[in-house]
């Protein structure tokens, strides 16, 4: 019995010894792998990794795809020109985009950005839209990694005191201001406006800014409601808007809901003098899906292909002007770019410039560099305030006119007069006032005509819009 006892004890002692040996081996191996693998890191990485998620499925899929395509084109352009020179490393590095589909879901964004951080990405780019950007921001901030926002416009993003979140696009508060200015310049000027915005951070920040501005310009707000973006029918609300005698409808949120509003307006037979919606009308699918219903719809736009900032200095980037960006994108993807693609590409340019100027891949250093940057790209002006919010870039107003998206405001860059009242296109267009902002007064007129046939045929190839020809589902 005693020997058995000792035998058992001996086994357990041996087991303990074995465990200790294994542990020591694991620890030593771990330390060895850590030190050897981190060695090349200190001597410098071979690639600049940029992590992001994009809504490639779900309600924001259309917007997410445009943004991703813009960024991919930028990465392709950078890499084909030999990468970004990083002076502290004494060499140029190619960029590598690491992206996941977040399904338009904030929870997925949070998980995926945490994952991207553990993968050791150098910089982060935010997903499209404000809610998703707001979900990614705290993770970037906690890990001190620069997060550039190209499609999150809500002012609330920059009101939380984040140090590492930088906006490339004009914030939400700026979106509808030029639309009100445009309406104010019309003769006869409309009086009654209905507000019908999405109930999301971006649209709410647009609404919060445009409401007092419209009132200050003497407009009467006859209807003011918000809606859930996921709603599939707005006929009750639009019936009410019709009954209030509104002449102009200003609202929207993103792509799907914007189209639904237009469909519902048409099915109810509601005639408004002008409709101005956020985001949706800027997308070329808007024309493909709605056809003639798109006519006269206006959209505040971050960028249009006819804009040419090449005269401004310092000018940065290999894209000379909007027209060139349009052509490059069109040849690469077979579809016309909207401003989401342009702002995403420009975000790449902003990061590129800050890396070159700071000579570093350290987020804190690059973020500091961005504070002092003041330059132009094909997308327009870049300058941020102390919170990281964009203050340099300015918005324009675009309108669908007979299958062509025209820039109608400010008048100094306009390619066409506003079609107003838009529901009666046979009526003579109104006289425009000559007021314009300082940046645009310097801009050259460079109308880019995107004929309906060309746009439509591009859409047909990519999106199988009915043509009577047999095409394969993609």
């Amino acid at each position: 019995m005693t020997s058995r006892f000792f035998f058992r004890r001996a086994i357990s002692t041996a087991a303990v010894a074995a465990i200790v040996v294994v542990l020591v081996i694991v620890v030593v191996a771990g330390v060895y792998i850590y030190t050897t693998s981190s060695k090349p890191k200190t001597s410098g990485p071979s690639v600049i990794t940029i992590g992001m998620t994009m809504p490639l499925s779900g309600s924001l899929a259309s917007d997410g795809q445009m943004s991703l395509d813009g960024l991919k084109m930028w990465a392709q352009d950078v890499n084909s020109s030999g990468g970004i020179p990083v002076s502290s490393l004494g060499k140029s590095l190619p960029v590598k985009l690491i992206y996941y589909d977040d399904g338009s879901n904030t929870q997925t964004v949070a998980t995926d950005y945490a994952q991207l951080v553990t993968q050791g990405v150098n910089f982060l780019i935010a997903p499209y839209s404000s809610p998703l950007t707001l979900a990614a921001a705290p993770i970037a901030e906690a890990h001190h990694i620069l997060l550039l926002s190209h499609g999150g416009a809500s002012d609330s993003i920059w009101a939380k005191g984040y140090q590492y979140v930088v906006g490339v696009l004009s914030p939400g508060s700026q979106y509808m201001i030029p639309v009100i200015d445009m309406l104010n310049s019309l003769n006869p000027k409309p009086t009654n406006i209905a507000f019908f915005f999405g109930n999301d951070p971006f649209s709410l920040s647009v609404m919060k800014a445009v409401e007092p501005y419209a009132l200050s310009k003497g407009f009467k707000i006859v209807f003011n409601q918000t809606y859930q973006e996921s709603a599939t029918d707005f006929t009750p609300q639009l019936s009410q808007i019709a009954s209030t005698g509104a002449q102009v409808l200003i609202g929207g949120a993103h792509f799907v809901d914007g189209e639904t509003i237009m469909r519902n307006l048409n099915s109810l037979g509601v005639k408004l003098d002008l409709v101005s919606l956020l985001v949706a009308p800027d997308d070329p699918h808007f024309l493909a899906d709605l056809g003639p219903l798109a006519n006269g719809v206006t959209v505040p736009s971050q960028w249009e292909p006819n804009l040419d900032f090449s005269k401004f200095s310092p000018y940065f980037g290999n894209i000379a002007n909007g027209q060139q960006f349009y052509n490059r994108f069109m040849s690469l993807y077979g579809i016309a770019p909207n401003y989401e693609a342009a702002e995403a590409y420009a975000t790449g340019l902003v990061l590129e410039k800050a890396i070159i100027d700071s000579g570093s891949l350290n987020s804190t250093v690059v973020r500091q560099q961005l504070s002092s940057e003041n330059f132009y790209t094909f997308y327009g002006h870049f300058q941020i305030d102390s919170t990281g919010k964009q203050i340099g870039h300015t918005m324009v107003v675009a309108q669908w006119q007979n299958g062509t998206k025209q820039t109608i405001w400010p008048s100094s860059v306009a390619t066409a007069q506003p079609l107003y009242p838009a529901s009666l296109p046979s009526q003579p267009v109104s006289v425009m006032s000559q007021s314009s902002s300082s940046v645009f007064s310097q801009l050259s007129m460079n109308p880019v005509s995107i004929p309906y046939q060309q746009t439509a045929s591009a859409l047909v190839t990519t999106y199988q819009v009915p043509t009577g020809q047999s095409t394969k589902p993609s």
Partner: protein
Amino acid sequence: MVSTLLVSQLVILGLMYGLLYGVLALGLNIVWGVMRVVNIAHGDFVMVGSYTSYWAFVLAGINPIISLLLTIPLGFALGTATYLSLVKRVQGSEELMSLFLTFGLSTLIGGLLLFLYSPTQRAIPIYLGNLAYLGLSIPVNILIASVYAIIVALGLRIFFTRTFWGKAIRAVIDDKISAMLVGINPSMVSLLTFGIGIAIACSVGSIIMLLESVSPVSGPDLTLISFVIVVLGGLGNPAGALVGGVLLGVVESVSSIAVNAAVTPAIGFIILFIVLIVRPQGIMGSR
């Protein structure tokens, strides 16, 4: 302040949308009521119908109303095949098992649609305008949807009251054991029920293309709203689905006068809570 005309307009819109809600939930209702199978994939079958109609329109210019001739048989075939291959194996076990199975099916169908057709929103640009009558505006697209709902409801009523298999299905709902005693084959009843349920779901998919744009991930939202309607109207009573749908449609529409549109999606659940407290078996349900 609020005119009678506006209220009438909203009631009519709500009624028409409510009928569509009703027919959307009909398929789910009979499958659940007869087979005790909780079909989480209901909305995804609707999407199969929507995508079939979309491509029929794009490739051959077929109007979604005509493509019903395509989606109804397709839905029936899909339903019976799904029943024979999968659903049959979990029927009779706990309802939780069918829930797991159909949840998997939902993910599979959603994923397949995403893989095949990309996440792009799809819409059929058919705009039929509106009928103006006494100052009211009746959108023709929605009118067609509600007329279709009424036709399906009447057709089902005739099927359930006048045909052998319709009566057999009702007998199984009432008392499965007694139904078997009088020689009704419950497997055949289940097969038929699932086929009809999915056929209705797919056909609603075609009709939805007249009203809105869809994406492969639209299915689960439709499933959720269908469940609310089924519980509202009462389980296993096809008429209950229509009543639940119309109630939801009208309340959602008329309430837009008083409440912000952002609150509208919550209204369905508020009605659901009230009905569950006051009449747990649903409006048309029996204990």
